[in-house]
């Protein structure tokens, strides 16, 4: 009987100790944010364009993490982006829905400076603060910071913003994938 009680007491003490340790660890070593959201957010192109119907890349990442949104709603990320998301989340690749805007070549907005009336509507619309300007002053786009989200186009009352594709320069030129030309083998004369 005593032996049994001793065993029970030992087990109880052990359980208490281990429980306290676990509780302490869960408080002390707590992971602050949802790491999955961060991981998904890191894969998104950060254009903040809202084409996914969420108000930015992070809200979309959160929606994916909780299973609210599909992984195929980010046109700027392209099919590559879907593949990466599928790999991260361990789900199947899912093509874009029909009617989804096609991936466009990277472009930046350009304000036609003689038409701009300085209304600041585009400044307010820009998700990355890449438009410089004040009321009644001509605005301009900081091209290096523009993500090409096109959110500034709709609010412009005078339609003075256009998207200009970023051309290939020496800085962003890439080597092509090696293509080995196929030629018919020379036939030997018999």
């Amino acid at each position, binding site marked *: 009987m005593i032996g049994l009680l001793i065993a029970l007491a030992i087990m109880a003490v052990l359980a208490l100790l281990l429980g306290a340790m676990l509780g302490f660890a869960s408080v002390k070593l707590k992971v602050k944010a949802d790491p999955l959201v961060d991981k998904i957010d890191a894969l998104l*192109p*950060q254009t903040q364009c809202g084409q996914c119907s969420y108000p930015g890349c*992070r809200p979309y990442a959160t929606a994916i993490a909780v299973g609210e949104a599909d992984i195929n709603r980010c046109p700027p990320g392209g099919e590559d982006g879907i593949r990466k998301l599928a790999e991260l989340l361990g789900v199947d690749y899912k093509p874009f829905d029909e009617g989804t805007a096609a991936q466009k070549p990277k472009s930046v907005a350009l304000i036609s400076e003689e038409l701009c009336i300085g209304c600041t509507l585009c400044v307010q619309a820009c*998700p990355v603060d890449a438009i410089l300007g004040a009321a009644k002053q001509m605005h301009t786009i900081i091209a290096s910071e523009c993500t090409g989200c096109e959110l500034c186009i709709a609010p412009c009352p*005078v339609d003075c913003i256009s998207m200009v594709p970023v051309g290939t320069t020496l800085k*962003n*030129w890439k*080597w092509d*994938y090696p293509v080995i030309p196929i030629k018919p083998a020379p036939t030997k004369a018999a």
Partner: protein
Amino acid sequence: MSKLYTFHGGIELPENKQQSTGRPIGTPPLPARLCLPLSQNLGNPAKPCVAVGDRVLKGQRIAEADGTVSAALHAPTSGTVVEIAPRAFAHPSGLAETAIVIEADGRDEWQPRQGFPLWQSAEPAEVRRFLRDMGVVGLGGSMFPTSLKLASETLDTLVINGAECEPYISCDDLLMRERAADIVAGIAIVTRLMQPKQVLIGIEDNKSEAIAAMRAACMNTPYRVVAVPTKYPSGSAKQLIRVLTGIEIPHGMRYTDMGVQCFNVGTVYSVCRAVEHGEPVISRIVTLSGAVARPQNVEALLGTPVTELMAWAGLSPRNDGVILGGPMTGFRLSDLSVGITKSSNCLLGSSPKLFPPRPPAMPCIRCGECADACPAKLQPMDLFWFAKTKDFGKAQERNLFDCIECGACSYVCPSQLPLVDYYRFAKSEIWAAERDKKASDRARSRHEFRLFRIEREKIEKAQRLAERSTAAKAAPQTATTAGTNSHLTPSAEDKSAAIKAAMERAAALKATGKESPVMQSEEAKQAAIQAAMERAAARKAAREAAGETPLQPPSASDEAKKAAIQAAMERAAAQRAAQAAASVGLPETPAAPIVPNNVLDDAKKAAIQAAMARAAAKKAEREAAEVNQRSGAAPATNALDDAKKAAIKAAMERAAAKKAALDTADAAPPATDTSPAAPAAQPAAMDDAKRAAIKAAMERAAARKAARDAEQGRDTEQDKDS
């Protein structure tokens, strides 16, 4: 004789150097035009400091370094700057790059040459600055600014690279043979700046004449000339350092971290020319070889077109292009008009006989030949597989970026795989991904900061409001004090005076606008700007009256209202004027009546309308001008053929479309103006601002559609014209 080491791999190649070493360094005739690209290395392109039309002297600086890793450019001869524009550039991409084009005047007139005679006693930083201004860069191929390489503090060994291992190239060989004294003088300057413990000059043992010349020049110096075994690629800095010192540079480190620095013989030669003689880098030795009649080395001015050099060497008519650089690491030029740069060491006439096209590639058989040949101790077949399947992460794990792209693996591959092409592809893809990553990280942080800023502004606004409401509560008690009243009245008077002045100005403008229809558009614009300014003033006044003078709320809001009405009237006038200007053939449409119910909303709406009207006016004006031109030109030519008739008809149709657009734009505002009443009926419904925004968007869409229609009309008309 010290011990020599050896590096892993490497290959033995047919040298083919004797063709071009038979003749001394030649001087080709002065070219008529020199084309100097501003982009030289990984850094920023140089910033031009001359303008088109300027006369420049030989050696005059024409572009300054822009940023640390950028190098200055100098005029290679005297002449006139005729162009600063994108020109074909010696780069595998074949992309154009901004270049300064100089038309030589044939006099080859030097500017006063100013060396740096006091380099022995001067601060190293001063000498470095001098070299930077002289445009001295690594002539071995990287074009990295020498002044930066000279800045490392502790140095054990200074290696001077005269190995020149690639076939056909002999420019360093000839330089050492003919100008050894200057090279040694350059080494002295570098040694003074860097204080190395030893100086080793590595030269491949197939250049016996160069070794002899250098040994003779180094007679009374501590510099040691070392003959290294001929093995490709011993001319690569890391491999030469390994051979001379036995130091192997670990992954992720640079040789400067190991206390070694390496300079090409051409670089130290140009250091000497700059410091001792005040000559910036304006020429370099170029090997002309391959399928040419007179292979030799020449001292060519920078910017000399490749065509002229190849013509001078007698490019074989059976050539199939020109290779810039050696047969292993060079690339075929897509445009032969490019000017040579500071790194162009060799031009090879290519012919199918000399450089037969690569046989078709076969599958990799995993023989391991490439791993045996790799001087960087990589596993080229693994890298090839990963690059081929675009598994760049794995390729990077296998140290893809330690690859020096020497081409030894491609050379030995029995399956004739273009291995280096795959590595280059993988490297540039990884770089592009890194660039994108950086850009998206920046976008993310900017977006997050924006959200934070908006939140902060909201909180600040709430705080201000709270403060103001408490102040307003406290105000009635203190309102009776005379001091605040006397303090407030002058500003109110000022404001009303300003508004009056503005009214007068607007009236005057209106009058002139009506009297002089010739200047209409200008005046309409001015009136619009004026109106906008006044509107802003009125709004500000209103805001101030509302916010800062809680003492007299009724009169203040009255004033604001008055100002708003005035502004609205002016706006209407401006709009009318704009439309009058716009409608050379259009009837004057009445401006939208504006009910000053909701002052701020109205002002905003009106601003948008005014902006639209202005934009439309501008467009219409442009088109009207076009019509005028056409109708004016038609009688003059007296050939009113069918096409022209059709054009006029189209123009008329366009005008009609425009009118329709204006009508729709004008029809909409009354509807908009009813919106302020709506919230009264439906207090829970959408607020004014939203409604107005939607309306505005609809109007915009309509206007845009009309504009597009009109544009299409113009396009078709243009088609007809052409």
